[in-house]
């Protein structure tokens, strides 16, 4: 075995491990920082949001790098169990690339992407139900808090004005 082959193995394995680390950070760090019932520091939040913004592209690049490193390692490494270990690592990076496209909070709070509305005369709500009320021109709309406190965000258009009702 030449030292050149050993060096190639080390480089390929290092690239693969770096890709695992990068992808793991891209997926885990924002979840760690931006989780409910935790105080967010300004700096860590800023970093987490930047990571979230770029992690889709970063994890794809990382996955490509991991696959390239795997091919390189496979050629230089004859032992099967080490090849298998490297394959698992590259597969894990690919899974992380897929997970990076999912914002867990966007699923957790059940978005209402197609809100529907009805006339007040046909709506049954107790008189002491609380609503967020808006009026634009002569158009008036109410968002029951029991509903909007569940979805939190409603994208809407009222009298041609695009609004987002939040709670």
């Amino acid at each position, binding site marked *: 075995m030449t030292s050149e082959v050993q060096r190639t193995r080390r480089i390929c394995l290092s690239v693969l491990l770096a890709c695992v680390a990068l992808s793991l950070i891209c997926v885990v760090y924002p979840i760690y920082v931006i*989780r409910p019932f935790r105080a967010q520091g300004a700096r860590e939040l800023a970093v987490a949001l930047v990571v979230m913004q770029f992690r889709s592209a970063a994890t794809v690049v990382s996955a490509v790098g991991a696959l390239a490193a795997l091919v390189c390692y496979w050629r230089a490494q004859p032992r099967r169990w080490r090849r298998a270990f490297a394959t698992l690592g590259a597969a894990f990076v690919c899974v992380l690339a897929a997970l990076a496209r999912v914002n867990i909070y966007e699923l957790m709070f059940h978005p209402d992407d197609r809100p529907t509305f*009805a006339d007040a005369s046909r709506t049954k709500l107790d008189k002491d139900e609380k*609503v967020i*009320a808006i009026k634009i021109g002569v158009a008036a709309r109410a968002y029951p*808090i*029991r509903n909007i406190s569940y979805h939190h965000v409603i994208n809407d258009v009222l009298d041609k004005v695009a609004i*987002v009702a939040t709670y």
Partner: protein
Amino acid sequence: MWGRDVAGLRLTFHLAGINDQNFLMRDEQTGSYWQQISGKAVSGPLRGSQLPFVHSDELNYGTWQSEEPQGTVLQDAAAYRFGYARKDWDVRMQRAPVVIDFREHGLKARDLMLGIQAFGASRAFPYDQVIREKLVEDHVGAERVLLVVGQDGQSVRAFRDRIPGISGAPEFYRMGAGQPGALMMDAATGSEWNFQGCAISGKAKGVCLEPVEVIKDYWFDWRNFNPSTTVYGRK
């Protein structure tokens, strides 16, 4: 409540994270992140941008329906109906844990406040105190404001405490009885005013006060995003 048209784009928002228990929204179009309470982009290509403000009120449904019988109401999404909160959601949430606390003014983290951010200042009014007093004439910054509790005893609106076209402080009084819908009277014109802030009798009949946005919020959240806030009735 915010407008969605910014920088020539019509944005579509999703709840995308939490910042000190106030949520962050992500817009589909640019991937920017926006703070819910301030409507300001805190990260992404539109960082620093501000969503246009849209006035809203938190009211009891009965009060709103009597004012807007032709209005429309957001309907339950059938798939999620069984997950919706009960109508005393804000009161029940007072038992939920908090991660930040500001032990100031003798307030607890989840005391309900009515917050006004206007005229270059922030001021919070303890909700229970406003409900007890029914009518509060105070100030936010250098501007006088008026908070009025509706006839349902729970809804609150705020107005600029000046009658358009009339000089001087109006001095409002809560009324016991009068015209249907009349809640208060002012000493300057002797007019009766309804919960929408419009004079329905007297010299000022037809005149409406300028509405001021008031947000019902927990003390910790209001104080966190309004660090220089003052508090009504507290030193």
